[in-house]
């Protein structure tokens, strides 16, 4: 009845209400962070390394064969990483990260291999198999796929002593938390057209394959084009290289560049030079190059090696372009494309590449760095085993002719990985990599400091460079890198931070993508003549820097590829970018690209509707469903160039009622939330758009200094220094980012009632007058906890104190009792060492001398022994850690301004006894 009545009634009110256009997409963000976590890029890249990368490395180096006897061999069948364990008294024990932090261990899991091998001491060389042979320990990233914390809920994490808000993504080496910083680099295997330091136009490619790494540079000097390659003692005319690769006809070369006569005339001086050198054939060119091959010294010594040049051209010149069966054609085409782009740049300097453009950058993450490190160590281990077996064979020491025993006895992997992570030095001679400070101790001064540390990107350039280009804010950073969060001073603009929604890709399988491209109509270049390559009706298709072929209809090709990606048939992070200017379609699936999710809009209408959001809120839909259903996709910086992204859903009229200039039909994507262009630190600022921009930058650096809570497990940690607030509060005004990162659960700071009276008086900048009563009542009270460690050598002893001076706080076991007030000069571990450590026979009291640990504190401070931890370290020595706590209230005349502090730091340095304080303050400043 009711329905009947209401049916004919048209509710005009609802009809005239303006269409509620904006779907609130904010809920997508927590959903996104739920599946991704705040530092997913670290974890993803490490997972990729453990699950795929490590197999590839072993696959590429799987067989070890004795040089003297091919039947004596070892072959790796499989490699896998187990669960984090530790060996205690020959027993394998499961470990948790918290155990490692407290007992100075490395959080690592065993690496196992399955092998097939023969033994030399057996006459018939039977093939033996061995499963689960351990070759070392792999440090495990927290919250990665092999970590015990994976997929645990809050209660389970609490049981393991872990903070649920901790993002993970770091390692624990010898008890210290270490982050491998994200490293910024120029793209590998891509042509970059630029001006070099001498102002010459140059085209360079940094090739990097599993086998070789090289840098190929073409440059133009005095109208002639040369190639520079380290393997040639001096620059080589480009025409000679092309001839050496088998293109003897000049006409073909010019055709490969394109029909435009301007290219021909630009190339003319180079052609002439080639003739003046009297080089007409491939043979002559190769001979000429043989002479130039080798380092400068070798060339001078006239050590000429036949075929050397051919080898260089095949393996090192443009190493990323493969040569199969001696077919140099792909390399020729690649070189021609490089030349053509170089000439374009000469004719029109707009086509020069921008090195600071984020699309030309790759971010190297912990996975890649660990992978390099592992590859190096794995190869070192194999070489060592081979050498060992070879020399044992020649000495006919048959007992030693066993690869497995050598591998097990000598494995640099555990040590090497641990050392690199704890020192941060990546010294890989094999890959010509010598980097320092790759890993850093995770900053635990505050929760935000730790988070901010995880999203930091360390710069590719030296900090000393006085250039402004790389420091400036790049428009292509939009949404990928935080525009506010960068340090002041020398690293300004070079050290950057990821934005909230950025994702960094990992490598993806290339084979399937290539075959998809081919089936979508990409023509292979092998079947085409030089002239046709640059025909004006087609675009080149370039996949990961390799020329795949050409396509007649680039728009259709790109759309088809994108459709496949949205359907999930292609990897979600594959990017398709049509470059009209270069007449190329760039397809990329390589790792290290930054990308971010965006809502797809069809002709300006967002694909996400209210019902989708309702399903999300009801929990029937998750972020990945949005991806799978083609509502959201990831765009990288390059593909963003093909998209028109609107901040909010398109409005036909703007706020003033004027017609919107942007055509709705042109819009292809809509942002999920505009504030995600900011990073974690900048996200804490309320109303950042009302601030002067450097203020936001300052706050990004200062937010990390706020004292408060560090983690839920802060009272059970044994860091060397922790600052905590006694009464931390959550801010009265929160931002969405604050809620997303959990800062409201781990507040830092207190809400203060502030009266501003700025007329006159107390007119010192950055000063406040505080109510003494509020300090009495606990405002700003803080706790510092310092760790004091004592190592008991095997020969040492810790004895029960007699009623002596300075030993009042010791327990019967000779170690300070928790809860005791500890004063200056008090002894907290009553340790004695033998006078002569080697003489352990007589254990009489006389042979021991005191070596007790004395507390050095400030006179008049009441410090308390908070906790005492006993554990055995890796060498089975007893390690005693006393955590000493001091509760402080804000004090009068703490000098807070930076200048003042610097000055006082220097002044204090002069006064005896205060030196320590001064040094510490300066150190503190460096950390900022």
């Amino acid at each position, binding site marked *: 009845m009711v329905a009947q009545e209401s049916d004919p009634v048209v509710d005009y009110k609802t009809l005239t209400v303006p269409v509620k256009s904006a779907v609130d997409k904010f809920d997508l963000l927590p959903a996104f962070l739920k599946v991704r976590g705040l530092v997913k890029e670290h974890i993803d890249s490490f997972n990729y390394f453990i699950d795929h990368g490590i197999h590839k490395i072993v696959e590429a180096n799987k067989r070890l064969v004795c040089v003297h006897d091919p039947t004596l061999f070892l072959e790796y069948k499989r490699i896998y990483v187990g669960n984090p364990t530790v060996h205690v008294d020959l027993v394998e024990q499961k470990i948790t990260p918290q155990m490692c932090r407290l007992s100075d261990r490395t959080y690592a899991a065993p690496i196992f291999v399955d092998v097939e091998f023969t033994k030399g001491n057996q006459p018939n060389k039977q093939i033996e198999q061995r499963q689960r042979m351990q070759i070392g320990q792999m440090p495990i990233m927290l919250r990665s796929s092999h970590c015990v914390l994976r997929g645990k809920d809050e209660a389970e994490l609490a049981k393991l002593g872990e903070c649920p808000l901790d993002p993970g993504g770091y390692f624990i080496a010898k008890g210290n938390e270490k982050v491998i910083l994200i490293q910024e680099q120029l793209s590998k295997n891509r042509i970059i057209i630029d001006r070099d330091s001498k102002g010459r136009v140059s085209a360079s490619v940094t090739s990097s394959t599993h086998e070789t790494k090289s840098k190929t540079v073409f440059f133009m000097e005095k109208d002639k084009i040369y190639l520079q390659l380290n393997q040639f003692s001096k620059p080589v005319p480009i025409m000679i290289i092309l001839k050496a690769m088998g293109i003897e006809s000049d006409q073909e070369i010019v055709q490969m560049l394109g029909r435009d006569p301007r290219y021909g005339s630009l190339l003319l001086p180079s052609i002439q030079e080639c003739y003046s050198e009297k080089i007409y054939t491939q043979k002559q060119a190769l001979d000429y190059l043989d002479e130039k091959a080798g380092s400068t010294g070798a060339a001078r010594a006239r050590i000429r090696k036949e075929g050397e040049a051919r080898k260089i051209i095949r393996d090192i010149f443009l190493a990323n372009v493969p040569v199969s069966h001696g077919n140099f054609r792909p390399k020729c085409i690649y070189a021609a494309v490089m030349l053509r782009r170089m000439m374009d740049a000469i004719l029109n300097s707009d086509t020069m590449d921008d090195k600071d453009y984020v699309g030309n950058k790759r971010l190297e993450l912990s996975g890649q760095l660990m992978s390099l490190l592992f590859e190096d160590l794995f190869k070192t281990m194999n070489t060592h085993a081979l050498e060992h077996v070879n020399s044992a064979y020649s000495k006919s020491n048959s007992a030693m002719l066993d690869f497995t025993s050598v591998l097990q006895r000598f494995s640099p992997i555990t040590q090497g990985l641990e050392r690199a992570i704890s020192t941060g030095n990546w010294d890989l001679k094999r890959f010509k990599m010598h980097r320092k400070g790759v890993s850093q101790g995770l900053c635990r001064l505050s929760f935000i400091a730790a988070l901010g540390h995880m999203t930091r990107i360390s710069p590719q350039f030296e900090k000393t460079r006085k250039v402004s280009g790389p420091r400036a804010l790049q428009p292509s950073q939009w949404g990928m890198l935080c525009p506010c969060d960068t340090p002041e001073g020398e690293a300004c603009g070079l050290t950057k931070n990821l934005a909230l929604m950025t994702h960094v890709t990992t490598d993806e399988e290339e084979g399937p993508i290539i075959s998809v491209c081919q089936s979508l109509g990409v023509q292979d270049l092998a079947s085409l003549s030089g002239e046709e390559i640059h025909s004006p009706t087609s675009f080149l298709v370039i996949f990961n820097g390799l020329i795949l072929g050409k396509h007649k209809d680039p728009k259709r090709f790109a759309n088809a590829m994108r459709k496949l990606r949205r359907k999930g048939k292609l990897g979600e992070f594959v990017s398709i970018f049509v470059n009209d200017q270069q007449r190329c379609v760039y397809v990329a699936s390589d790792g290290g690209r930054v990308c971010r999710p965006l809502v797809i809009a069809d002709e300006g209408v967002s694909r996400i509707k209210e019902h989708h959001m309702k399903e999300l809120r009801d929990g029937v839909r998750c972020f990945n469903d949005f991806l799978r259903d083609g509502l959201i996709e990831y765009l990288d910086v390059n593909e963003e160039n093909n998209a028109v992204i609107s901040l909010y859903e398109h409005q036909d009229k703007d706020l003033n009622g004027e017609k919107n200039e942007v055509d709705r039909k042109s819009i292809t994507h809509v942002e999920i939330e505009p504030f995600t262009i900011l990073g974690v630190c900048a996200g804490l600022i309320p109303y950042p758009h009302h601030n002067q921009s450097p203020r936001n930058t300052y706050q990004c650096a200062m937010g990390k200094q706020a004292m408060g809570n560090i983690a839920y497990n802060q009272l059970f940690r044994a860091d060397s220094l922790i600052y905590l607030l006694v009464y931390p509060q959550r801010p009265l005004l929160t931002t969405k980012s604050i809620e997303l990162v959990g800062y409201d659960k781990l507040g830092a700071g207190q809400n203060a009632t502030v009266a501003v009276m700025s007329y006159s008086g107390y007119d010192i900048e950055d000063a406040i007058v505080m109510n003494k009563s509020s300090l009495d*009542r606990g405002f700003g009270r803080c706790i510092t906890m310092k760790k004091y460690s004592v190592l008991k050598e095997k020969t040492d002893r810790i004895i029960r104190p007699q009623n002596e001076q300075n030993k009042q706080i010791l327990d019967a076991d000779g170690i300070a009792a928790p809860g005791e007030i500890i004063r200056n000069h008090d002894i907290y571990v009553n340790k004695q060492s033998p006078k002569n450590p080697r003489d352990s026979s007589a254990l009489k009291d006389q042979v021991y001398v005191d070596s007790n640990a004395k507390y050095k504190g400030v006179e008049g401070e009441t410090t308390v022994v908070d906790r005492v931890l006993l554990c055995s370290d890796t060498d089975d020595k007893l390690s005693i850690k006393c955590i000493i706590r001091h509760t402080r209230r804000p004090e009068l005349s703490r000098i807070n301004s930076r200048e003042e502090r610097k000055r006082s730091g220097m002044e204090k340095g002069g006064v005896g006894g205060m030196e320590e304080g001064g040094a510490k303050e300066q150190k503190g400043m460096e950390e900022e």
Partner: protein
Amino acid sequence: MSRRVPGVGVVGGAEDFLDAGGGVEDDALSPTVGDEQETEGVSYSGAYAAMGVDNSLQLDSFCKNFKVVVNKLSEDEMEFDMIGIDAALANAFRRILIAEVPTMAIEKVFFLDNTSVINDEVLAHRLGLIPLAVDPRLFDDLSENDVPNERNTLVFKLEVSCEKGGPRRTVKSDQLKWLPNGSELPMELRNPSGNQKGYTSFSCSQASLPELSKNPPRVKHGDIIISKLGPGQAIELEAHAVKGIGKTHAKWSPVSTAWYRMLPEVVLLKEVRNEDAEGLAAKCPTKVFDIEDMGKGEKRAVVVNPRACTLCRECIRGGGEDLVELRRVKDHFIFTIESAGALPPEVLFTEAVKILEGKCERVISELS
């Protein structure tokens, strides 16, 4: 009018007096809001003698004019008007109330056990801030060399634990138990200084003292959360309260706060009629103005409740300056005392007066 000028510090600089011409007294008493002289005083009473203004404090005129009117009085809070007094004196009372009227508060805490998340120092600090409902006048000060005895120390005990396997427990302030016989702890062996046996030496039980047995010492509010205990945690401690003043530490301050404000005076400079009147009345958020019917449909605004004025200046915003002037009566203070609980607010004020009296006497005796 000039006789009402309270003396010691009259308001306003000399320029104001000159500018104001004939209206010296009026302006001196109620400067308009926005003038920056407010309570700024001239300390020499003869500063304006040349102008015929004698600012010296005359005892008889003060006695005649000084008035106290109590507006509100409850157990913890009092609001009263102090009329005919100088700002310097009113402020002296305020400061004495906050910092110099003594109370009892926990000063020393002896821990036997504390396994709660709150560590000893912080817990002791929290205990110190708990207001005790004890009349401090019954106790003596405990100076450095004094032995804690029944006349200067109050002892409380807190013994709580949370069962293993049970739910979490909240420790509230009413779990502090008064120990009338003093400390139950033996002196530590390590520290055998003197012949003292325990930490206090009470000659008799405090319960036998009539003032205390009538009104046994307790915490003022029983629902203050001291700490929370997880299963298996326990707190056992003894807390010793002594007499002290807020100057030493805010925990001894007998008031949450004490403050005053000057009585606002809202003056209509012109007659405000009809729409303007209604507009004015509507502007004021605290309803200071009312509309008076003048008959014949004519209305005008009148100031009915200047006391409610918060000086928010809403009425003079946007061209209201020529209609309304906001002033304050310089010798009329609306004084509020919020007691923390040791003594009722009116007693606190008389205590403050006594302390000021004592100070004055000290000065006089020093001088003579």
